[in-house]
């Protein structure tokens, strides 16, 4: 005779609670695991010492400094202009944005930051926004690849290649651009540059939409990112997060809006913010920021003074022989310009004594320069506020409680670069 037996099916939360209770009875010891410094998911040379209880992380101690080159020490020993190539190597995924940030900081010390020619301002904004797209594309590609979606990486790298071509057309170099100078730019953009950007924007819009279809509503992607490593608004502010990581937590703060520099106040764009502060929000914020950057670029293309080919000969440098280099022809033919050129090369731009801090909205967050000057052509002290360094300091709080397989996702969503973090 068959008997009927009731089977109790509990919901998943109750099952997990029971499993945890069961686990507590099993004695075990914690294991320490070294992740990095040479690990594909750490995007460089970050080392994290993880303490594990089974597969759950109970403690995480990030160890940075493997890429320390002493940039701040080096800066004290050379002129302001000579340090520009070093800024390329801070956030090496967005060298153009670093160049702009550094030049603006020195210009603030000189007191000429609001006297920049409009054409220079527009070109710098275009450089910064191209750099933002480029950095976010790499961040997104690597993030998706670490999570298992390799296709996105190929898509984004194809687009990044075009931005490298644009950087090469403007500055002559693909990675180490050094495009800005104190008080202006190395040179004007080539006449075809604006058309190249238009072409790029057309193709990029398609690629971005494609990447978005692959990820944004992808079940696996959403499941792995949502509700993971939630950073509350208060925590984000307390830890000094900046950039997309701060805005992903719902803090409406962007230096381009809060303290508009260059020509950002003449441009229309929106600041995306997240609602929850999890990995998925940070991903969405970056996606939207790329679209806003496209919007800014389109406006710049239409509004740039002098147009693409600069028929009206708009200047790109501040008209001050004591700050920007005179043209070669004038150096060869006029005494005064020869003296200026000589002084600029041998002594550097003569900055007044004083101290300033300038923060620039870089792709990774707020890249700040504190410059302490005692006068003359070299800084007495130059401190770099590296956004990646500060964004990483939250790891010790963010990782514990997550599983090992969540770590690459968390790291990818914070989107840091060690060249900048370690300086």
């Amino acid at each position, binding site marked *: 005779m068959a008997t009927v037996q009731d089977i109790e099916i509990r919901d998943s939360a109750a099952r997990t609670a029971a499993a945890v209770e069961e686990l507590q009875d099993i004695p075990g010891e914690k294991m320490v695991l070294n992740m990095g410094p040479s690990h594909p998911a750490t995007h460089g040379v970050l080392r994290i010492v993880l303490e594990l209880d089974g597969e759950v992380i109970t403690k995480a101690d990030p160890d*940075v*400094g493997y890429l*320390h080159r*002493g940039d*701040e*020490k*080096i800066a*004290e*020993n*050379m*002129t302001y202009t*000579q340090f520009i190539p070093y800024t390329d190597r801070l956030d090496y995924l967005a060298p153009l944005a670093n160049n702009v940030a550094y030049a603006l900081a020195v210009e*603030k*010390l000189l*007191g000429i930051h609001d006297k920049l020619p409009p054409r220079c301002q527009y070109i710098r904004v275009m450089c910064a926004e191209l750099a933002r797209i480029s950095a976010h594309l790499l961040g997104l590609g690597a993030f998706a690849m670490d999570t298992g979606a390799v296709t996105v990486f190929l898509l984004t790298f194809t687009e990044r290649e075009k931005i490298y071509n644009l950087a090469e057309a403007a500055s002559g170099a693909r990675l180490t651009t050094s495009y800005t100078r104190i008080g202006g730019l190395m040179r004007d953009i080539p006449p075809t540059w604006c058309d190249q950007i238009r072409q790029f924007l057309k193709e990029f819009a398609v690629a971005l939409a494609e990447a978005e279809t692959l990820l944004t509503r992808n079940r696996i992607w959403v499941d792995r990112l949502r509700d993971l490593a939630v950073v509350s608004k208060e925590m984000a*502010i*307390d*830890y*000094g997060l900046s950039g997309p990581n701060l805005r992903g937590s719902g*803090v409406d*703060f962007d230096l381009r809006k*809060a*303290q508009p520099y260059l020509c950002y106040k003449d441009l229309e764009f929106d600041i995306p913010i997240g609602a929850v502060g999890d990995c998925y929000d940070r991903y969405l914020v970056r996606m939207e920021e790329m679209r806003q950057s496209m919007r800014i670029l389109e406006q710049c293309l239409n509004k740039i003074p002098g147009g693409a080919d600069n028929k009206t000969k708009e200047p790109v440098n501040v008209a001050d022989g004591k700050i920007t280099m005179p043209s070669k022809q004038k150096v060869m033919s006029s005494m005064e310009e020869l003296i200026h050129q000589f002084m600029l090369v*041998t*002594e550097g731009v003569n900055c007044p004594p*004083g*101290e*300033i*801090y300038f*923060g620039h909205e870089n792709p990774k967050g*707020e890249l*700040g320069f*504190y410059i*302490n000057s*005692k*006068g*003359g*052509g*070299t*800084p*007495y*002290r130059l*401190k770099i*506020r590296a956004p990646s*360094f*500060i964004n*990483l*300091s939250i790891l010790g709080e963010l990782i514990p409680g997550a599983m090992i397989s969540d770590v690459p996702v968390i790291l990818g969503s914070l989107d840091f670069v060690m060249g900048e973090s*370690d*300086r």
Partner: protein
Amino acid sequence: MSALESANKIKAKFGDLISEPTEFRGEITIKLADAEQIFEVCNFAKRQLGFDYLVDISSVDNYGEDPRWTVIYELRSLANNVELRLKTDVSEEKSELPSVLGVWRTANWHEREIYDMMGIRFSGHPDLRRILMWEGYPYFQLRKDFPLAGKPTDLPGVAFTQPAPLEGGPFVTIPSSGDAIGREPRVRTPEE
């Protein structure tokens, strides 16, 4: 509330400990005379004046002067969009000031970095280790008396044992507003 008003409020609260606010390039700076009070001042600025965001902490080595160290706090209020710079001096004999980790948690890594680079200690910091350099490195390399070329050390393989490739130039200049010969050691002395 503007930065100047905030600075005056801090001055009203702490009196003579706080200097008159100075302005340079639109930035307001105040200086705290007694570094031991830094925690109280920061705490007041955060709780009462809304400076909820610590942008950065920098340090300067005023080599040859007394007090030798200056520590600089860049405060920001996100709600009011106001920035204020707070400075304080620390003498070389003491080389220690209270940690502001209890006010902003972001101060943790900033203070570790200053300890690592300059050798200024922060009392009350729970985990004051080197951060960019490795544990056991014998020098503080951002001090002005540490040469750009590095220093020989008794710990072979741990710190520099060879002069750095940049030693002697071509880019090396000595910071001062003096003439080119003084600043660039490698420049040729003109014949008298």
